[in-house]
């Protein structure tokens, strides 16, 4: 027996919508309940997942708009299973975290927060290109309001408009490209217009069409990640989003973009993916180096994480465009890892800022570990996972990505390896400058309270769990992930694939 996907998908938004009409406490409760039930469902789905099956599982397929060939088609396979679980888990923990913080109009905050979860889950579950585009845009709208209504008053409007317009410019190009894909496929195959990925996948478009369509999709995904040089919105956006929202924004939304590359770009446009492989690898490497160097330079802790995300997502893009099974598997695993690492890091920032007079600047920190050994330990685990310490799941992810990259281009892999070294530089700098060193001017070292621990400990526990048992994600994803890059891999490395066979 399986629950239709629509229920966990819409549950958070529906619960929070009811909460709009209730007192603040009740709306918080409903937010945590809605996200919690969805998370529980995701755990159960992982346990229930049939790892041998090749196709989609638990499919919901309705013809939504017959005239336009848009299906309301949702499904789960090895490619999105763990990203869905990641999103459900992080939204749940961050909802709990957000519920513990006082702010104006909490009902509205809860509604936007939950709507964002539904948007993200929808984008991950969607098996129809038009539906994917719809959810991809929809998940961004709540963040516009969250940042614009609860961010720092002086800068929030400009920053959020910048973030929103920047990211939507990419998404709208993707909309045009998606419609063109559907129309061109239907004209070429003579079948009725349909945007279902399974229908689109049957017809391979001519290479010329594939190329411009691929570039439009790539623009949308690279902006959302963000990757160099499309990261212009990132510093302002990161400074202005409230931390619980920023944690999910950074941890989950960027992964939807990475997922989009695997599901849509590489899956539907294999010729173009092979054609633009070098371009994407170069962008990935530049992102890794640029992000790492910037993360090492800036002092705002949010931006340290922001630039480190640029670098980490560079790794993920590198893995995807290695266009082989190892790289793709590493990319998915690293997506989950990065989400699990960056979210607790934002929690730590919030806790440290509360102990440093509200400042989020590294120069105001220092000596925080003095009276807070538990907090320091938890943070250390997060920091070590960030720099991909052997033994952490991030190590496995980066290892797989580099393995895949070596098969494709030795030079790219060697340069990317520098990024691994740089990661330890900025990761350790973040930890040492905040927790050790001279005590900051307003720093007030305090141990974390039980309430604070309730948020941070589950996140750290998830990191530890995956460090011990990364196969959980790898084994379930293997079949689907390998399949998603198969066509492109055959085009990119005809010899290697032939040998493997």
């Amino acid at each position, binding site marked *: 027996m399986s629950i239709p996907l629509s229920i966990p998908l819409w549950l958070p938004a529906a619960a929070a919508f009811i909460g709009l009409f209730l007192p603040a406490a009740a709306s918080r409760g409903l937010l945590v309940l809605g996200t919690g039930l969805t998370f529980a469902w995701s755990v159960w789905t992982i346990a229930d997942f049939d790892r041998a099956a090749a196709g989609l599982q638990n499919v919901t397929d309705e013809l939504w708009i017959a005239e336009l060939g848009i299906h309301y088609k949702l499904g789960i396979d090895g490619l999105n299973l763990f990203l869905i679980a990641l999103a459900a888990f992080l939204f749940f923990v961050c909802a709990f975290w957000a519920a513990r913080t006082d702010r104006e109009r909490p009902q509205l905050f809860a509604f936007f927060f939950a709507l964002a979860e539904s948007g993200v889950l929808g984008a991950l579950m969607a098996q129809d290109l038009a539906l994917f585009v719809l959810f991809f845009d929809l998940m961004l*709208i709540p963040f516009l309001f969250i940042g614009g209504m609860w961010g720092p008053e002086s800068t929030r409007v400009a920053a959020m408009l910048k973030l929103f317009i920047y990211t939507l410019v990419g998404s709208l190009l993707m909309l045009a490209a998606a419609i063109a894909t559907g129309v061109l496929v239907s004209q070429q195959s003579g079948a009725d217009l349909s945007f279902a990925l399974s229908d689109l996948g049957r017809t391979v478009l001519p290479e010329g069409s594939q190329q411009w369509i691929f570039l439009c999709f790539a623009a949308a995904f690279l902006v959302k990640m963000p990757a160099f040089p499309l990261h212009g919105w990132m510093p302002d956006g990161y400074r202005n989003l409230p931390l619980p929202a920023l944690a999910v924004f950074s941890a989950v939304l960027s992964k939807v973009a990475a997922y989009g590359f695997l599901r849509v770009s590489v899956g539907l446009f294999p010729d173009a993916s092979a054609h633009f492989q070098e371009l994407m690898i170069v962008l990935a490497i530049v992102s890794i180096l640029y992000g790492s160097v910037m993360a090492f330079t800036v002092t705002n802790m949010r931006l340290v994480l922001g630039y480190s995300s640029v670098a980490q997502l560079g790794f993920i893009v590198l893995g995807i465009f290695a266009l082989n099974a190892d790289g793709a598997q590493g990319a998915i695993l690293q997506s989950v890892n990065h989400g699990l690492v960056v979210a607790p890091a934002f929690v730590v920032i919030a806790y440290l800022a509360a102990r440093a007079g509200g400042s989020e600047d590294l120069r105001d920190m220092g000596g925080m570990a003095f009276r807070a050994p538990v907090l320091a330990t938890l943070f250390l685990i997060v920091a070590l996972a960030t720099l991909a310490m052997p033994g952490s799941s991030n190590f496995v992810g980066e290892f797989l990505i580099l393995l895949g990259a070596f098969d494709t281009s030795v030079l790219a892999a060697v340069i990317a390896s520098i990024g691994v070294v740089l990661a330890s530089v900025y990761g350790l700098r973040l930890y040492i400058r905040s927790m050790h060193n001279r005590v900051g001017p307003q720093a007030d070292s305090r141990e974390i309270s039980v309430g604070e621990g309730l948020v941070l400990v589950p996140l750290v526990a998830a990191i530890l769990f995956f460090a011990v048992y990364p196969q959980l994600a790898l084994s379930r994803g293997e079949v689907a992930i390998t399949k998603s890059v198969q066509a492109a891999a055959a085009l990119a490395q005809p010899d290697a694939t032939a040998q493997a066979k």
Partner: protein
Amino acid sequence: MPSIELQLSAISAPHIDWAGFSPAIALIGGSLLVLVVGLMRSRAVREQLVPFLALVAFAAAIGLGVWQWNEAKELFVAEGSQAALRFDDLTLMILFIVAVGGIAAVLLSWRAHAPRETAHGEYFALMLASASGMVLLAAAQNLVSLFLALELLSIPLYVLCAAEMRRARSLESGLKYLIIGSVGSATLLYGLALIYGASGDTDFRGIAEAVASGMARDALLLTGLALAVIGLAFKASVAPFHQWTPDVYEGAPTPVTTFMAVATKAAAFGVLLRLLDVALIDAHRDWAPALATLAAVTIVVGNVGALGQSSLKRLMAWSSVAQAGYLLAGVVVASRVGVQATVFYLAVYLLMNLAAFAVIVARERETDLGDDIAAVTGLGAERPALAWPMTVAMLALAGLPGTAGFIGKFHLIDAAADGGYTWLGVVIVIGSMISLAYYLRVVAAMWMTGEKPAPAPAAGATPRLAGADPAAERRHPEVALVAVLAGAATVFFGILPSPLLDLAVDAGRALGLM
């Protein structure tokens, strides 16, 4: 005397299907009735009964339209010639859009200044007359009925724009619209004359036959076609014939602006579809690239023009220019999908604009800031019932998902790509990107700006009467109702577009295109 008998039979009155014509009769009859009732002395009759009767007339037109759905009747068929009007599903769809727009405009006018200054009877009679002109325009089957309907549409609107006689801006708006509209009409008339001269027929079908039999590249016909399109482009505010739009929209009483924005546009596009996609369909190869260029220019000009506006009405005017460009994409491709997309988007455009304009009307009455963007600042905290519809309208106009605007734009891009105009689809998308900058500014003002600027009476604001009512009394529930219903419908059709799409599909079939 056989010869006289022969002549008599030759000029025998055309056959009229009264049932088919009934929706238009409701509007025309309503107009006359309202005018007469408006002469009564009782103030209650003038201020309450007259607008109510106008509502009934619009509602009756909708009801009769539903009755006549799928009948596709040819009206005013004289012997030996073709029908003058055709009440098919396309006409009826335009009728629905016009009538819904009319109902909203009546509700917004209920307690407005304009009808009090012009006298209620005249005001609502003019509105109904203009609405009937719009419906007839969409139904026109030959060049003569086209032109007559266009004038029936336009002349009452010129008067309505100047309805607030004591406000200079309103008079300016009426005069400007009159002059520009007359230039447009003259251009159109000249173009129609050339088309007639080239094809030798005023009937659309006769023209189509002439064009099909080798007229398509005739210089006279193409010149006539170009002039006719320019004339209609004035009405639909297609760039570069849009310059009147911001001034007229800003100066006219806001309920009139509302009506003009949604209904005129629907009628203008209805007739563009008939003229280009039926009568001149075989010249498609020649006019399509030109019209596509016009669409692209309109999209860019409208969106860029809206960027710096601080008056909401001017902003909506520029946005309506941009939206006209999107709509043209559906006309350009001359396919069934194109017609379908255009009609669907017209309906969606109606809902989005009604929500936005209702909020503007409400804020004009509740604040002293007129239609300045400051009037909606902090609306999210102050009046969520108005802020939500406005937010939905802005997001929908920008084409964001979860709203009918997304489906509408999706459909238009789909039609463009399907007709081989993918680049126009990309232009639509680029236009949407630019438009985010000004639509989101309104959203940001409502939700994200904490402090309200000190109220300073804007230049365009209506001067308040002495001893004016306090703010609470100026919260008019019928205005908020229009906003909430239109906003809710925009979201509803964004999630379940099928009912509206089914209507659009029927309307799309009416032209008999592939």
